Protein backbone atom coordinates (compact mmCIF):
# COMPACT_ATOMS: atom_id res chain seq x y z
CA UNK A 1 0.00 0.00 0.00
CA UNK A 2 1.26 3.47 -0.87
CA UNK A 3 1.57 5.80 2.06
CA UNK A 4 -0.31 9.10 1.70
CA UNK A 5 1.91 12.10 0.97
CA UNK A 6 0.23 14.09 3.69
CA UNK A 7 -1.35 12.28 6.60
CA UNK A 8 -3.10 14.28 9.32
CA UNK A 9 -4.68 12.66 12.33
CA UNK A 10 -6.49 14.37 15.25
CA UNK A 11 -4.57 17.59 14.74
CA UNK A 12 -5.38 20.52 17.02
CA UNK A 13 -3.69 23.89 17.00
CA UNK A 14 -3.72 26.76 19.44
CA UNK A 15 -2.44 30.32 19.17
CA UNK A 16 -1.39 32.41 22.14
CA UNK A 17 -0.62 31.51 25.71
CA UNK A 18 -2.46 31.51 29.03
CA UNK A 19 -5.75 33.38 29.05
CA UNK A 20 -5.26 34.45 25.43
CA UNK A 21 -4.86 30.87 24.28
CA UNK A 22 -7.26 30.27 21.43
CA UNK A 23 -7.88 27.09 19.50
CA UNK A 24 -7.96 27.60 15.72
CA UNK A 25 -7.79 24.01 14.45
CA UNK A 26 -10.03 21.27 15.83
CA UNK A 27 -9.46 17.57 15.32
CA UNK A 28 -8.32 17.74 11.70
CA UNK A 29 -8.15 14.43 9.83
CA UNK A 30 -6.94 14.44 6.25
CA UNK A 31 -5.07 12.22 3.84
CA UNK A 32 -3.73 13.39 0.51
CA UNK A 33 -2.34 10.86 -1.91
CA UNK A 34 0.44 11.15 -4.41
CA UNK A 35 -0.38 13.18 -7.50
CA UNK A 36 -3.63 14.50 -6.05
CA UNK A 37 -4.64 18.11 -6.53
CA UNK A 38 -6.58 19.25 -3.50
CA UNK A 39 -8.16 22.67 -3.18
CA UNK A 40 -9.00 23.95 0.27
CA UNK A 41 -11.54 26.69 0.55
CA UNK A 42 -13.62 28.25 3.28
CA UNK A 43 -14.42 31.56 4.92
CA UNK A 44 -11.80 34.01 6.03
CA UNK A 45 -10.26 33.26 9.40
CA UNK A 46 -11.30 29.61 9.33
CA UNK A 47 -7.73 28.33 9.66
CA UNK A 48 -6.78 27.40 6.08
CA UNK A 49 -3.44 29.21 6.12
CA UNK A 50 -2.66 27.81 9.55
CA UNK A 51 -3.12 24.26 8.32
CA UNK A 52 -1.15 24.90 5.14
CA UNK A 53 1.83 26.38 7.00
CA UNK A 54 1.85 23.39 9.31
CA UNK A 55 1.89 20.95 6.38
CA UNK A 56 4.80 22.96 4.95
CA UNK A 57 6.83 22.81 8.15
CA UNK A 58 6.65 26.60 8.56
CA UNK A 59 4.79 26.25 11.83
CA UNK A 60 5.32 23.41 14.24
CA UNK A 61 2.44 21.08 15.05
CA UNK A 62 1.56 20.82 18.74
CA UNK A 63 -0.74 17.87 19.22
CA UNK A 64 -2.05 15.04 17.13
CA UNK A 65 -0.12 13.65 14.20
CA UNK A 66 1.10 15.34 11.02
CA UNK A 67 3.15 13.20 8.69
CA UNK A 68 4.51 14.72 5.51
CA UNK A 69 6.37 12.40 3.12
CA UNK A 70 6.58 9.91 5.95
CA UNK A 71 8.19 12.31 8.41
CA UNK A 72 6.35 13.13 11.62
CA UNK A 73 6.32 16.92 12.00
CA UNK A 74 4.42 17.02 15.29
CA UNK A 75 7.02 17.99 17.89
CA UNK A 76 9.80 18.24 15.30
CA UNK A 77 12.84 20.42 16.05
CA UNK A 78 13.55 23.65 14.20
CA UNK A 79 16.32 21.91 12.31
CA UNK A 80 14.09 19.03 11.24
CA UNK A 81 11.48 21.52 10.05
CA UNK A 82 14.09 23.40 8.01
CA UNK A 83 15.17 20.18 6.32
CA UNK A 84 11.59 19.06 5.67
CA UNK A 85 10.92 22.38 3.90
CA UNK A 86 13.45 21.50 1.24
CA UNK A 87 11.09 18.85 -0.12
CA UNK A 88 8.21 21.25 -0.76
CA UNK A 89 7.59 23.99 -3.23
CA UNK A 90 5.73 27.07 -2.06
CA UNK A 91 3.75 29.62 -3.90
CA UNK A 92 2.67 32.63 -1.94
CA UNK A 93 -0.05 35.14 -2.56
CA UNK A 94 2.66 37.70 -3.24
CA UNK A 95 5.40 36.52 -5.54
CA UNK A 96 8.12 37.25 -2.92
CA UNK A 97 10.88 37.27 -5.50
CA UNK A 98 14.19 38.79 -4.43
CA UNK A 99 14.36 42.25 -5.99
CA UNK A 100 18.14 42.12 -6.43
CA UNK A 101 18.12 38.83 -8.30
CA UNK A 102 17.24 38.23 -11.94
CA UNK A 103 14.50 35.76 -12.85
CA UNK A 104 17.18 33.13 -13.43
CA UNK A 105 18.96 33.80 -10.14
CA UNK A 106 15.66 33.69 -8.27
CA UNK A 107 14.80 30.32 -9.77
CA UNK A 108 18.29 29.04 -9.06
CA UNK A 109 17.80 29.77 -5.37
CA UNK A 110 15.34 26.86 -5.44
CA UNK A 111 18.18 24.54 -6.48
CA UNK A 112 21.13 25.79 -4.44
CA UNK A 113 19.72 24.03 -1.41
CA UNK A 114 20.49 20.71 -3.04
CA UNK A 115 24.25 20.30 -2.79
CA UNK A 116 24.71 17.53 -5.37
CA UNK A 117 23.64 19.66 -8.35
CA UNK A 118 26.49 21.30 -10.27
CA UNK A 119 26.46 24.98 -11.25
CA UNK A 120 26.07 24.14 -14.94
CA UNK A 121 23.16 21.84 -14.19
CA UNK A 122 21.54 24.44 -11.93
CA UNK A 123 21.70 27.03 -14.70
CA UNK A 124 20.42 24.63 -17.32
CA UNK A 125 17.51 23.41 -15.24
CA UNK A 126 16.55 26.94 -14.19
CA UNK A 127 16.53 28.15 -17.78
CA UNK A 128 14.48 25.14 -18.89
CA UNK A 129 12.02 25.83 -16.07
CA UNK A 130 11.69 29.47 -17.10
CA UNK A 131 11.07 28.36 -20.67
CA UNK A 132 8.37 26.01 -19.41
CA UNK A 133 6.56 28.89 -17.70
CA UNK A 134 6.89 30.92 -20.90
CA UNK A 135 9.62 33.31 -19.75
CA UNK A 136 12.50 32.00 -21.85
CA UNK A 137 13.02 35.52 -23.19
CA UNK A 138 13.00 37.17 -19.73
CA UNK A 139 15.69 35.05 -18.07
CA UNK A 140 17.91 37.97 -17.10
CA UNK A 141 15.17 40.44 -16.13
CA UNK A 142 14.95 41.82 -12.63
CA UNK A 143 11.51 41.43 -10.99
CA UNK A 144 10.86 45.18 -11.26
CA UNK A 145 10.81 44.78 -15.04
CA UNK A 146 8.25 41.96 -15.04
CA UNK A 147 4.46 42.15 -14.84
CA UNK A 148 2.52 40.69 -11.91
CA UNK A 149 1.61 37.53 -13.82
CA UNK A 150 5.18 37.09 -15.03
CA UNK A 151 6.51 37.45 -11.50
CA UNK A 152 4.07 34.85 -10.22
CA UNK A 153 5.23 32.55 -13.02
CA UNK A 154 8.86 33.04 -11.94
CA UNK A 155 7.73 32.13 -8.42
CA UNK A 156 6.14 28.96 -9.80
CA UNK A 157 9.35 28.13 -11.63
CA UNK A 158 11.29 28.66 -8.40
CA UNK A 159 8.90 26.41 -6.49
CA UNK A 160 8.98 23.61 -9.04
CA UNK A 161 12.57 23.69 -10.33
CA UNK A 162 13.80 21.25 -7.71
CA UNK A 163 10.93 18.87 -8.66
CA UNK A 164 9.41 18.78 -5.18
CA UNK A 165 7.03 16.05 -4.16
CA UNK A 166 4.57 18.57 -2.74
CA UNK A 167 3.47 21.99 -3.92
CA UNK A 168 1.73 24.22 -1.41
CA UNK A 169 0.02 27.38 -2.59
CA UNK A 170 -1.90 30.00 -0.63
CA UNK A 171 -4.16 32.11 -2.81
CA UNK A 172 -1.64 32.24 -5.67
CA UNK A 173 -4.05 34.05 -7.95
CA UNK A 174 -5.33 36.68 -5.54
CA UNK A 175 -2.99 39.38 -6.79
CA UNK A 176 -3.58 38.62 -10.47
CA UNK A 177 -6.20 39.62 -12.99
CA UNK A 178 -8.64 37.01 -14.26
CA UNK A 179 -6.68 35.87 -17.31
CA UNK A 180 -3.25 35.70 -15.66
CA UNK A 181 -4.82 33.94 -12.68
CA UNK A 182 -6.24 31.31 -14.98
CA UNK A 183 -2.90 30.94 -16.84
CA UNK A 184 -0.99 30.52 -13.60
CA UNK A 185 -3.32 27.81 -12.30
CA UNK A 186 -3.27 25.95 -15.62
CA UNK A 187 0.50 26.09 -15.58
CA UNK A 188 0.70 24.73 -12.04
CA UNK A 189 -1.70 22.01 -12.99
CA UNK A 190 0.22 21.01 -16.10
CA UNK A 191 3.66 21.02 -14.49
CA UNK A 192 2.48 19.18 -11.40
CA UNK A 193 0.92 16.46 -13.51
CA UNK A 194 4.14 16.10 -15.50
CA UNK A 195 6.29 15.85 -12.36
CA UNK A 196 3.80 13.73 -10.43
CA UNK A 197 3.63 16.37 -7.76
CA UNK A 198 0.94 16.60 -5.11
CA UNK A 199 -0.76 19.98 -4.77
CA UNK A 200 -2.54 21.53 -1.82
CA UNK A 201 -3.96 24.87 -2.82
CA UNK A 202 -5.91 27.39 -0.77
CA UNK A 203 -8.15 29.73 -2.69
CA UNK A 204 -11.23 31.92 -2.55
CA UNK A 205 -11.36 32.03 -6.30
CA UNK A 206 -14.13 29.66 -7.39
CA UNK A 207 -13.24 30.14 -11.06
CA UNK A 208 -10.27 27.83 -10.61
CA UNK A 209 -11.95 25.05 -8.67
CA UNK A 210 -12.20 22.92 -11.81
CA UNK A 211 -8.52 21.90 -11.68
CA UNK A 212 -9.08 20.08 -8.39
CA UNK A 213 -9.30 16.33 -7.98
CA UNK A 214 -10.90 16.96 -4.62
CA UNK A 215 -12.18 20.03 -2.81
CA UNK A 216 -12.11 20.29 0.97
CA UNK A 217 -13.92 22.92 2.97
CA UNK A 218 -12.72 24.49 6.19
CA UNK A 219 -15.07 26.23 8.58
CA UNK A 220 -14.29 27.48 12.09
CA UNK A 221 -11.16 25.37 12.31
CA UNK A 222 -12.87 22.14 11.26
CA UNK A 223 -12.86 20.30 7.98
CA UNK A 224 -16.40 19.98 6.73
CA UNK A 225 -18.08 18.37 3.80
CA UNK A 226 -18.02 20.85 0.94
CA UNK A 227 -21.32 22.71 0.69
CA UNK A 228 -22.70 23.92 -2.59
CA UNK A 229 -19.55 25.25 -4.18
CA UNK A 230 -21.24 28.11 -5.91
CA UNK A 231 -21.88 29.70 -2.51
CA UNK A 232 -18.25 29.68 -1.57
CA UNK A 233 -16.22 32.86 -1.87
Amino acid at each position, binding site marked *: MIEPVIYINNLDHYFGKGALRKQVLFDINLEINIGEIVIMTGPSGSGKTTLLTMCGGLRSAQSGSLKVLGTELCGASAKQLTISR*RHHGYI*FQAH*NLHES*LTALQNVKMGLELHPDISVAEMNQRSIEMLELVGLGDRVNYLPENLSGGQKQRVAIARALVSQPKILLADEPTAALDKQSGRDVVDLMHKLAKEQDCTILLVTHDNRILDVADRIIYMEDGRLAKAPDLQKVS
Partner: protein
Amino acid sequence: MLKIIQNLTRRTPLGWLQLTQHKSRFAVAISGVAFADLLMLMQLGFQGALFDSAVILHSKLTADVFIISPQALNIGAMSTFPRRRLYQAMDITGVKSAEPMYVNLVTWKNPQTRDKKNLIIVGFNPDRPIFNLPEVNSQLDKIKQSDVLLFDRKAIGAYEKVVESVDDGKAVTTEIERRTVSVNGLFSIGSSFSADGHLMTSEDNYLRLFSRQSSGNINVGLLTLNPGYDPTQVVQQLKAYLPRQDIKVLTKEEYIAFEQGYWQQQTPIGPIFNLGAIMGFIVGVIIVYQVLSTDVNSHLREYATFKAMGYSNTYLLGIVFEEALILAVVGFIPGLIVSLGLYTVVGGATNLPIAMTVFRAAQVLAGTLIMCMLSGAVATSKVQAADPADMF
Protein backbone atom coordinates in the same frame (compact mmCIF):
# COMPACT_ATOMS: atom_id res chain seq x y z
CA MET B 1 38.10 23.24 3.15
CA LEU B 2 37.69 22.19 -0.46
CA LYS B 3 34.01 21.76 0.26
CA ILE B 4 33.69 25.32 1.56
CA ILE B 5 35.30 26.71 -1.60
CA GLN B 6 33.06 24.51 -3.71
CA ASN B 7 30.02 25.79 -1.85
CA LEU B 8 31.15 29.37 -2.32
CA THR B 9 31.50 29.00 -6.06
CA ARG B 10 28.02 27.58 -6.54
CA ARG B 11 26.40 30.05 -4.19
CA THR B 12 24.61 33.07 -5.62
CA PRO B 13 26.50 36.12 -4.22
CA LEU B 14 23.39 37.52 -2.58
CA GLY B 15 25.15 40.00 -0.32
CA TRP B 16 27.03 41.54 -3.23
CA LEU B 17 23.90 41.68 -5.39
CA GLN B 18 21.83 43.21 -2.59
CA LEU B 19 24.43 45.83 -1.80
CA THR B 20 25.18 46.84 -5.36
CA GLN B 21 21.62 46.98 -6.60
CA HIS B 22 21.08 50.44 -5.17
CA LYS B 23 24.14 52.21 -6.48
CA SER B 24 23.72 55.44 -4.54
CA ARG B 25 23.01 53.65 -1.27
CA PHE B 26 26.08 51.51 -1.86
CA ALA B 27 28.19 54.61 -2.59
CA VAL B 28 27.05 56.21 0.67
CA ALA B 29 27.85 53.05 2.61
CA ILE B 30 31.29 52.80 1.05
CA SER B 31 32.06 56.46 1.78
CA GLY B 32 31.00 55.88 5.37
CA VAL B 33 33.45 53.03 5.79
CA ALA B 34 36.12 54.96 3.89
CA PHE B 35 35.58 57.93 6.19
CA ALA B 36 35.98 55.76 9.28
CA ASP B 37 39.14 54.26 7.79
CA LEU B 38 40.43 57.72 6.98
CA LEU B 39 39.89 58.83 10.58
CA MET B 40 41.73 55.80 11.90
CA LEU B 41 44.59 56.10 9.41
CA MET B 42 45.06 59.82 10.07
CA GLN B 43 45.01 59.44 13.85
CA LEU B 44 47.40 56.51 13.80
CA GLY B 45 49.49 58.35 11.20
CA PHE B 46 49.85 61.38 13.46
CA GLN B 47 50.68 59.11 16.34
CA GLY B 48 53.30 57.29 14.29
CA ALA B 49 54.74 60.59 13.09
CA LEU B 50 54.94 61.80 16.68
CA PHE B 51 56.89 58.77 17.74
CA ASP B 52 59.11 58.89 14.66
CA SER B 53 59.75 62.63 14.93
CA ALA B 54 60.47 62.33 18.64
CA VAL B 55 63.58 60.34 17.74
CA ILE B 56 64.48 62.16 14.55
CA LEU B 57 67.69 63.47 16.18
CA HIS B 58 68.50 60.16 17.88
CA SER B 59 68.42 58.36 14.57
CA LYS B 60 71.19 60.62 13.25
CA LEU B 61 73.64 59.87 16.09
CA THR B 62 76.48 57.46 15.35
CA ALA B 63 77.08 56.24 18.92
CA ASP B 64 76.34 52.63 19.94
CA VAL B 65 75.79 53.12 23.67
CA PHE B 66 74.25 56.06 25.50
CA ILE B 67 74.63 57.30 29.04
CA ILE B 68 71.92 59.58 30.42
CA SER B 69 70.78 60.89 33.78
CA PRO B 70 68.12 58.89 35.67
CA GLN B 71 66.17 62.16 35.83
CA ALA B 72 66.08 62.52 32.05
CA LEU B 73 62.57 62.93 30.61
CA ASN B 74 63.00 63.56 26.91
CA ILE B 75 65.44 65.11 24.44
CA GLY B 76 64.45 68.63 25.53
CA ALA B 77 64.77 67.82 29.26
CA MET B 78 67.70 65.46 29.63
CA SER B 79 68.93 66.68 33.05
CA THR B 80 72.68 66.24 33.65
CA PHE B 81 75.24 63.82 35.06
CA PRO B 82 78.96 64.14 35.85
CA ARG B 83 81.30 64.11 32.88
CA ARG B 84 83.64 61.90 34.98
CA ARG B 85 81.46 58.91 34.12
CA LEU B 86 82.62 59.16 30.50
CA TYR B 87 86.29 58.78 31.51
CA GLN B 88 85.34 55.83 33.73
CA ALA B 89 83.41 54.25 30.87
CA MET B 90 86.61 54.25 28.81
CA ASP B 91 87.97 51.60 31.23
CA ILE B 92 85.63 48.98 29.78
CA THR B 93 87.17 46.98 26.97
CA GLY B 94 85.46 47.53 23.66
CA VAL B 95 84.67 51.19 24.32
CA LYS B 96 86.51 53.06 21.59
CA SER B 97 85.48 56.63 22.44
CA ALA B 98 83.24 58.51 24.83
CA GLU B 99 82.01 61.96 23.82
CA PRO B 100 79.73 64.38 25.64
CA MET B 101 76.66 65.80 24.01
CA TYR B 102 74.96 68.90 25.34
CA VAL B 103 71.35 69.24 24.37
CA ASN B 104 68.46 71.42 25.49
CA LEU B 105 65.35 73.18 24.42
CA VAL B 106 66.12 76.80 23.58
CA THR B 107 64.02 79.82 22.72
CA TRP B 108 65.37 81.91 19.88
CA LYS B 109 64.11 84.86 17.93
CA ASN B 110 63.23 83.91 14.40
CA PRO B 111 65.67 86.22 12.51
CA GLN B 112 63.04 86.82 9.86
CA THR B 113 59.97 87.61 11.97
CA ARG B 114 61.52 88.33 15.41
CA ASP B 115 58.98 85.83 16.88
CA LYS B 116 60.14 83.62 19.74
CA LYS B 117 60.33 79.96 18.76
CA ASN B 118 61.45 76.76 20.45
CA LEU B 119 64.30 74.76 18.95
CA ILE B 120 66.46 71.89 20.15
CA ILE B 121 70.09 72.97 20.40
CA VAL B 122 72.95 70.47 20.39
CA GLY B 123 76.49 71.23 21.50
CA PHE B 124 79.42 68.89 20.83
CA ASN B 125 83.16 68.86 20.23
CA PRO B 126 83.69 69.92 16.58
CA ASP B 127 86.86 67.82 16.46
CA ARG B 128 84.83 64.70 17.19
CA PRO B 129 81.78 64.49 14.90
CA ILE B 130 78.82 62.67 16.49
CA PHE B 131 76.27 62.72 13.63
CA ASN B 132 76.10 60.80 10.38
CA LEU B 133 75.06 64.01 8.64
CA PRO B 134 77.67 64.85 5.93
CA GLU B 135 76.29 68.38 5.71
CA VAL B 136 77.05 68.95 9.40
CA ASN B 137 80.40 67.19 9.33
CA SER B 138 81.61 69.37 6.45
CA GLN B 139 80.85 72.60 8.32
CA LEU B 140 82.48 71.82 11.66
CA ASP B 141 85.07 74.59 11.15
CA LYS B 142 82.30 77.19 11.15
CA ILE B 143 81.05 76.31 14.63
CA LYS B 144 84.55 76.50 16.03
CA GLN B 145 84.14 80.27 15.78
CA SER B 146 82.48 81.74 18.79
CA ASP B 147 78.71 82.24 18.76
CA VAL B 148 78.30 80.60 15.37
CA LEU B 149 75.47 78.10 14.84
CA LEU B 150 74.20 75.77 12.14
CA PHE B 151 70.46 75.87 11.49
CA ASP B 152 67.90 73.24 10.43
CA ARG B 153 66.60 74.14 6.97
CA LYS B 154 63.65 71.78 7.50
CA ALA B 155 62.49 73.60 10.66
CA ILE B 156 58.84 74.63 10.48
CA GLY B 157 58.05 78.34 10.44
CA ALA B 158 58.85 81.37 8.29
CA TYR B 159 62.52 80.77 7.59
CA GLU B 160 62.71 81.02 3.77
CA LYS B 161 64.72 84.26 3.84
CA VAL B 162 67.10 82.89 6.47
CA VAL B 163 67.73 79.77 4.40
CA GLU B 164 68.12 81.77 1.21
CA SER B 165 70.56 84.21 2.77
CA VAL B 166 72.72 81.52 4.42
CA ASP B 167 72.71 79.50 1.20
CA ASP B 168 74.07 82.64 -0.53
CA GLY B 169 76.91 82.69 1.97
CA LYS B 170 75.54 85.61 3.99
CA ALA B 171 75.35 84.83 7.72
CA VAL B 172 72.17 85.77 9.60
CA THR B 173 72.27 87.07 13.18
CA THR B 174 69.68 86.75 15.91
CA GLU B 175 69.35 86.42 19.68
CA ILE B 176 69.38 83.47 22.06
CA GLU B 177 69.22 84.05 25.82
CA ARG B 178 70.00 87.78 25.19
CA ARG B 179 73.20 86.78 23.36
CA THR B 180 73.75 87.62 19.74
CA VAL B 181 74.47 84.55 17.66
CA SER B 182 75.12 84.05 13.97
CA VAL B 183 73.79 81.34 11.64
CA ASN B 184 76.56 80.50 9.19
CA GLY B 185 75.47 77.14 7.85
CA LEU B 186 72.52 74.80 7.28
CA PHE B 187 71.66 71.12 7.64
CA SER B 188 68.48 69.04 7.36
CA ILE B 189 66.72 67.19 10.18
CA GLY B 190 63.19 68.56 10.59
CA SER B 191 60.69 69.31 13.29
CA SER B 192 59.71 67.10 16.17
CA PHE B 193 56.81 67.33 18.59
CA SER B 194 59.04 69.06 21.15
CA ALA B 195 60.46 71.73 18.84
CA ASP B 196 60.14 73.37 15.44
CA GLY B 197 63.61 72.26 14.42
CA HIS B 198 67.26 71.96 15.48
CA LEU B 199 70.41 74.07 15.99
CA MET B 200 73.97 72.80 16.25
CA THR B 201 77.07 74.37 17.67
CA SER B 202 80.30 73.61 19.53
CA GLU B 203 80.24 72.68 23.17
CA ASP B 204 82.03 75.95 24.03
CA ASN B 205 79.37 78.04 22.27
CA TYR B 206 76.67 75.94 23.91
CA LEU B 207 78.09 76.53 27.39
CA ARG B 208 78.30 80.27 26.71
CA LEU B 209 74.54 80.25 25.99
CA PHE B 210 73.71 78.14 29.04
CA SER B 211 75.95 79.84 31.54
CA ARG B 212 74.36 77.98 34.44
CA GLN B 213 75.48 74.62 33.06
CA SER B 214 79.13 73.79 33.75
CA SER B 215 81.26 71.78 31.36
CA GLY B 216 81.54 69.09 34.05
CA ASN B 217 77.81 68.33 33.83
CA ILE B 218 76.75 66.83 30.51
CA ASN B 219 73.37 65.79 29.10
CA VAL B 220 74.17 62.69 27.07
CA GLY B 221 77.26 60.49 26.90
CA LEU B 222 77.95 58.99 23.47
CA LEU B 223 80.02 55.81 23.47
CA THR B 224 81.35 54.30 20.27
CA LEU B 225 82.44 50.66 20.40
CA ASN B 226 85.27 48.90 18.62
CA PRO B 227 84.05 46.63 15.86
CA GLY B 228 82.99 43.18 17.05
CA TYR B 229 81.69 44.23 20.46
CA ASP B 230 78.04 43.63 21.29
CA PRO B 231 76.41 46.82 22.66
CA THR B 232 74.09 44.80 24.93
CA GLN B 233 77.05 43.12 26.63
CA VAL B 234 78.98 46.36 26.96
CA VAL B 235 75.91 47.98 28.51
CA GLN B 236 75.77 45.15 31.08
CA GLN B 237 79.43 45.68 31.95
CA LEU B 238 79.00 49.46 32.20
CA LYS B 239 75.99 49.05 34.48
CA ALA B 240 78.01 46.85 36.78
CA TYR B 241 81.04 49.15 36.71
CA LEU B 242 79.56 52.66 36.95
CA PRO B 243 77.76 53.98 40.05
CA ARG B 244 74.07 53.36 39.51
CA GLN B 245 72.57 56.30 41.32
CA ASP B 246 73.45 59.13 38.91
CA ILE B 247 73.35 57.48 35.44
CA LYS B 248 71.46 55.13 33.15
CA VAL B 249 73.19 53.15 30.37
CA LEU B 250 71.25 52.27 27.22
CA THR B 251 71.80 50.73 23.80
CA LYS B 252 70.68 52.79 20.83
CA GLU B 253 67.39 50.82 20.57
CA GLU B 254 66.78 51.31 24.28
CA TYR B 255 67.51 55.02 24.04
CA ILE B 256 65.06 55.39 21.16
CA ALA B 257 62.47 53.35 23.07
CA PHE B 258 63.08 55.54 26.11
CA GLU B 259 62.33 58.72 24.18
CA GLN B 260 59.25 57.23 22.51
CA GLY B 261 58.09 55.81 25.82
CA TYR B 262 58.10 59.30 27.27
CA TRP B 263 55.73 60.65 24.63
CA GLN B 264 53.64 57.51 24.84
CA GLN B 265 53.21 57.40 28.60
CA GLN B 266 54.09 60.71 30.18
CA THR B 267 51.99 62.87 27.87
CA PRO B 268 48.35 62.50 26.83
CA ILE B 269 49.38 62.72 23.16
CA GLY B 270 49.46 58.94 22.63
CA PRO B 271 46.07 58.30 24.28
CA ILE B 272 44.54 61.27 22.43
CA PHE B 273 45.41 59.81 19.06
CA ASN B 274 44.34 56.37 20.20
CA LEU B 275 41.05 57.87 21.27
CA GLY B 276 40.76 59.52 17.85
CA ALA B 277 41.31 56.18 16.18
CA ILE B 278 38.72 54.55 18.45
CA MET B 279 36.26 57.30 17.53
CA GLY B 280 36.82 56.46 13.89
CA PHE B 281 36.18 52.83 14.71
CA ILE B 282 32.94 53.67 16.51
CA VAL B 283 31.76 55.95 13.71
CA GLY B 284 32.40 53.02 11.37
CA VAL B 285 30.48 50.58 13.55
CA ILE B 286 27.48 52.93 13.63
CA ILE B 287 27.51 53.61 9.89
CA VAL B 288 27.90 49.96 8.94
CA TYR B 289 25.23 48.93 11.43
CA GLN B 290 22.85 51.48 9.92
CA VAL B 291 23.52 50.24 6.41
CA LEU B 292 23.21 46.57 7.30
CA SER B 293 20.14 46.83 9.50
CA THR B 294 18.31 48.94 6.90
CA ASP B 295 19.24 46.36 4.33
CA VAL B 296 18.07 43.44 6.48
CA ASN B 297 14.82 45.25 7.29
CA SER B 298 14.03 45.90 3.67
CA HIS B 299 14.66 42.26 2.81
CA LEU B 300 12.75 40.59 5.64
CA ARG B 301 10.12 39.24 3.24
CA GLU B 302 12.75 37.73 0.99
CA TYR B 303 14.61 36.27 3.94
CA ALA B 304 11.40 34.73 5.29
CA THR B 305 10.78 33.29 1.84
CA PHE B 306 14.22 31.73 1.81
CA LYS B 307 13.55 30.25 5.22
CA ALA B 308 10.27 28.86 3.90
CA MET B 309 12.21 27.27 1.05
CA GLY B 310 14.43 25.49 3.55
CA TYR B 311 17.40 27.86 3.89
CA SER B 312 18.80 27.85 7.40
CA ASN B 313 19.33 30.82 9.69
CA THR B 314 23.07 30.32 9.25
CA TYR B 315 22.73 30.84 5.53
CA LEU B 316 20.92 34.14 6.04
CA LEU B 317 23.45 35.28 8.63
CA GLY B 318 26.06 34.47 5.99
CA ILE B 319 24.47 37.03 3.67
CA VAL B 320 24.78 39.75 6.32
CA PHE B 321 28.41 38.85 7.03
CA GLU B 322 29.14 38.73 3.31
CA GLU B 323 27.83 42.28 3.07
CA ALA B 324 29.90 43.33 6.08
CA LEU B 325 33.01 41.85 4.51
CA ILE B 326 32.36 43.57 1.18
CA LEU B 327 31.83 46.93 2.89
CA ALA B 328 35.05 46.49 4.87
CA VAL B 329 37.22 45.63 1.89
CA VAL B 330 35.65 47.95 -0.69
CA GLY B 331 35.52 50.86 1.79
CA PHE B 332 39.13 50.39 2.84
CA ILE B 333 40.55 51.06 -0.62
CA PRO B 334 39.32 54.68 -1.05
CA GLY B 335 40.02 55.29 2.64
CA LEU B 336 43.63 54.25 2.11
CA ILE B 337 44.05 56.25 -1.09
CA VAL B 338 42.64 59.47 0.39
CA SER B 339 44.75 59.14 3.52
CA LEU B 340 47.88 58.59 1.44
CA GLY B 341 47.06 61.91 -0.23
CA LEU B 342 46.47 63.60 3.10
CA TYR B 343 49.71 62.15 4.50
CA THR B 344 51.59 63.90 1.71
CA VAL B 345 49.75 67.17 2.29
CA VAL B 346 50.21 67.11 6.07
CA GLY B 347 53.80 65.89 5.79
CA GLY B 348 54.59 68.74 3.40
CA ALA B 349 52.93 71.36 5.58
CA THR B 350 54.52 70.31 8.88
CA ASN B 351 57.74 68.55 7.88
CA LEU B 352 56.54 65.76 10.17
CA PRO B 353 57.80 62.35 9.07
CA ILE B 354 54.27 61.07 8.44
CA ALA B 355 54.35 57.94 6.29
CA MET B 356 52.15 54.94 5.63
CA THR B 357 53.52 51.68 6.90
CA VAL B 358 52.35 48.24 5.81
CA PHE B 359 51.82 47.47 9.47
CA ARG B 360 49.49 50.42 9.99
CA ALA B 361 47.52 49.71 6.83
CA ALA B 362 47.14 46.08 7.90
CA GLN B 363 46.20 47.21 11.40
CA VAL B 364 43.44 49.47 10.10
CA LEU B 365 42.22 46.86 7.61
CA ALA B 366 41.97 44.39 10.48
CA GLY B 367 40.18 47.05 12.53
CA THR B 368 37.76 47.63 9.64
CA LEU B 369 37.04 43.93 9.35
CA ILE B 370 36.33 43.72 13.07
CA MET B 371 34.24 46.89 12.85
CA CYS B 372 32.10 45.52 10.01
CA MET B 373 31.76 42.06 11.53
CA LEU B 374 30.71 43.59 14.83
CA SER B 375 28.02 45.68 13.14
CA GLY B 376 27.03 42.65 11.08
CA ALA B 377 26.66 40.55 14.21
CA VAL B 378 24.35 43.14 15.77
CA ALA B 379 22.36 43.54 12.56
CA THR B 380 21.77 39.79 12.24
CA SER B 381 19.53 39.76 15.31
CA LYS B 382 16.85 41.04 12.95
CA VAL B 383 17.28 38.11 10.60
CA GLN B 384 15.90 35.80 13.27
CA ALA B 385 12.77 37.92 13.21
CA ALA B 386 12.01 36.83 9.66
CA ASP B 387 9.35 34.20 10.36
CA PRO B 388 8.31 32.08 7.37
CA ALA B 389 5.00 31.25 9.07
CA ASP B 390 3.91 34.85 8.57
CA MET B 391 4.54 34.65 4.86
CA PHE B 392 1.24 33.20 3.72
